[in-house]
């Protein structure tokens, strides 16, 4: 196990190094002059030039990259071109809100999605299965933007029950996390259903039934355990997506997370912040993947690393 983790760690470092190159290159391939965008349309040419020097954008590309990498190795993500604040501060000010939203949405998705999938699988081809299939189909195809606004209109404007935006109250979490979870619920339910259906036809399930186990025992102890591996994979990937893909939800609900910071920074061509956020996300995503792999071994004793 330890050796495996070691290997994964080295692979992660190489991946991250590759990511720094890709982000750096892609950002600079984008059209648009950061100095002009940040200085504003009314700034004089002299001020734009001065800003360009201050931001280090007058330096050759390779030097810029070397500076970026050198600072990164010292744990310094640089200074935001737009706000003049350290990138790490900008990110850390918003990361908790994004994490909170992603984790709660993930939990909602798992707690609803898995049972729905199990029910649909065990009642295969019943009316209930069809109804659940249709609902989950809606879930995967509904635009986040539209769903979010609908929830706001119903629960905040018409019923006056919940906050329409912001994150200062605990109940502020409800609408955005439901919105963000909708897609994942549907995906997890569909994944669980198909995975369960496969397993329910296995011999050991028939054996379990034959020896007289109650259906509930068969489903939960024998089938679900074995159907769980693909579901865990989806859960892990979805969590990564939730962390990074919350831009629309954050925008609709004015949720002060990373997604909005990223958007503002891309539009301002704030290279240091975009680089920093992508790097941190990449690191988190890789960490998450390792965690999921370790979880496999934990859930399925047949899986060994080493």
């Amino acid at each position, binding site marked *: 196990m330890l050796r495996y983790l070691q290997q994964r760690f080295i692979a992660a470092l190489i991946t991250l190094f590759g990511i720094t190159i890709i982000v750096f290159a892609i950002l600079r391939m984008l*059209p*648009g*002059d950061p100095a*002009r*965008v*940040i*200085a*504003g*349309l*009314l*700034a004089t*040419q002299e*001020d734009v030039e*001065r800003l360009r020097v201050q931001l280090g954008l007058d330096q050759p590309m390779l030097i810029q990259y070397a500076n970026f990498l050198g600072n990164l190795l010292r744990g310094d993500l640089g200074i935001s071109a*737009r*706000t*003049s*604040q350290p990138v790490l*501060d*900008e990110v*850390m*000010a*918003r990361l*908790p*809100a994004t994490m*909170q939203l992603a*984790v*709660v949405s*993930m*939990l909602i998705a*798992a*707690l609803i999605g898995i049972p729905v999938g199990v029910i649909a699988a065990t009642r295969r081809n019943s009316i209930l299965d069809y109804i659940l299939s249709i609902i989950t189909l809606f879930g995967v195809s509904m635009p986040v933007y539209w769903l979010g*606004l609908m929830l*706001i209109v119903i629960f*905040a*404007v018409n019923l006056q029950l919940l906050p*329409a*935006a*912001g*994150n*200062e109250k*605990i109940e502020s979490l409800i609408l955005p996390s439901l919105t963000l979870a909708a897609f994942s619920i549907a995906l997890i339910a569909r994944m669980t259903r198909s995975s369960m259906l496969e397993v329910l036809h296995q011999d050991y399930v028939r054996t379990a039934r034959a020896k007289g186990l109650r259906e509930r025992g068969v489903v939960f*102890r*024998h089938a*679900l*355990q074995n159907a769980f591996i693909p579901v865990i994979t989806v859960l892990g990937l979805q969590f990564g997506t939730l962390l990074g893909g919350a831009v629309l939800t954050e*925008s*609709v*609900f*004015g949720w*002060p997370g990373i997604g*909005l*910071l990223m958007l*503002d920074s891309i*539009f*301002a*061509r704030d290279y240091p912040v975009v680089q920093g956020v992508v790097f941190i996300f990449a690191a988190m995503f890789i960490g998450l993947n390792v965690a999921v792999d370790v*979880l496999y071994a*934990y*859930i399925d004793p047949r899986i060994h690393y080493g």
Partner: protein
Amino acid sequence: MFRFAQPFTRVMLLLALVVLAVACAAPTAAPTSAPPTKAPVATSAPAPAATTAPAATAVPATKAPDPTKPAAAATNFRIAIGVDMDTLDPAGQTTTTVSNVVDYSAETLVTIDEKGETQPLLAKSWDVSKDGLTYTFVLQSGVKFHDGKAFDANAAKMNIERILDPDVKVGTRGPFMSIGKVEAVDASTVRITLKTPFPALLQAFSMTTSGMLSPTLIEKTAATYKNITQPTGTGPYVLKEYTKGAQLVFAKNADYWGKKPYYDTVTIRIVPEAATRESLLLANQVDAIILPPISDVPALQRNSAVKVITAPSNRIIFISINNTVKGLDNPKVRQALNYAVDKEAIIKSVMFSAGYELDAPMAPSLFGYCKVGSYAYDVNKAKALLKEANITAPLKLAFISPTGRYVQDFQASQAVAGYLKEVGVETDLKTMDWPSYVATITKPVAENTTNLHLLGWAPGFLDASQQMTFFSISQHVPKGLATHFYTNADVDKKIQAADAEIDAKKRAELYCDINKTIWNEAPVIFLWNQAFPIVHSAKVKNVTFRPNEKFYAIYAEPAN
């Protein structure tokens, strides 16, 4: 047999625990609305060098409310805006709405009223010498910064000198570049000597850029000199808390020198999505918003629970024409393009009436504006002009437009393209993100491939000189932002003369004359003066505007 149940349950339990932990760690630190009952908080404590601002930073209040008074429920005014703060340093301002927020805390020497006229603020009077080279400001007395420091001539001098310091990131330094020397004559008199006459300087001092901050922050040796994160000014409200991406909370400045506002606190919420801002207002979760979804403006106007203000702004919207392209270099062709577009119809159906058709090359709120004409929709006239210019084959033009930068920008461009087609001008309209757009339209003439592009121009302050730079040869891109390459040496000379004319009446006449020439030569397709919609609950009053895309709600109060 039981092996399974355990891990599965454990995984779910683990998940649940993580969620619980995260949920509990939620930034639930909503600002306590009860006024502090403690004794006055350190009046002398300056704002710390808060360079490492975490989620929220706070400034100590100058004084707690009088503890002997019965603690009435604190009143809070809530307004939702669309953009997060890039900088709270007045000097660094480039975004009007951010300046609007900074204005709660930092005040300028002069300000503007609803009509755009210059009014005293921190300077109670001023005098301009006959040669226009010396400005003498007499400052209000008894004014204190939020940290207790007195506002005096020295403080004003330091602030003005800071704007001129090339080491400081200043968004709009241009209007102050004529300043040669700043002197504190006595405690309440500042004298500014110019290198060259610049009659618009007084107006320039209404820009948030010149907002006055406490000397403690801007002392050259202070750590905050270049990077200010706390607008410790003299304003009616003190910034108490700023949660990035979420909100700013201001508390009433108990020591404010001027008329005291009604609300104890003001919460400015950052909500990027226009439809959500509208919902917040309709759900009674905020008292006012700016920029609702423009298509909802008619419905909001019919709703008796809210009031809609379609404030005129200083921003003009136009289609810039590349005046160097063959065909487009003929004023007749450019006039034809102007006649070809039905501005009135577009304003009504595409802009939801959030615009006022232009009748001059600048907004009416500017000094130097005069009504000069109209290009009333006339297809026949457009066609006749094209014929006169010997345009026989259909003109094929490259047309680009931003999306979401200005009110209904891309939709309006589509409508314009439709009208142009009617007179035989074919365009291939494309859109792109803003930074790419700016990069495209600011290419030097040899590489500039666009023929038409939609653009908005909001002068830094309400003086014709700030609009005229757009028509000056020296400002052709990439040097400036004159993206049309309109070249008229005579106009250029007249602009320079008007910009330097000290006699206000003469100056206005000079600008009026230039307006006429520019209007007739039509370097752009003149569209409209964009409105700035503000919507507030009918339960509050005194929410108003300034004609430079700012809301003005400092003196808001309950309607009854």
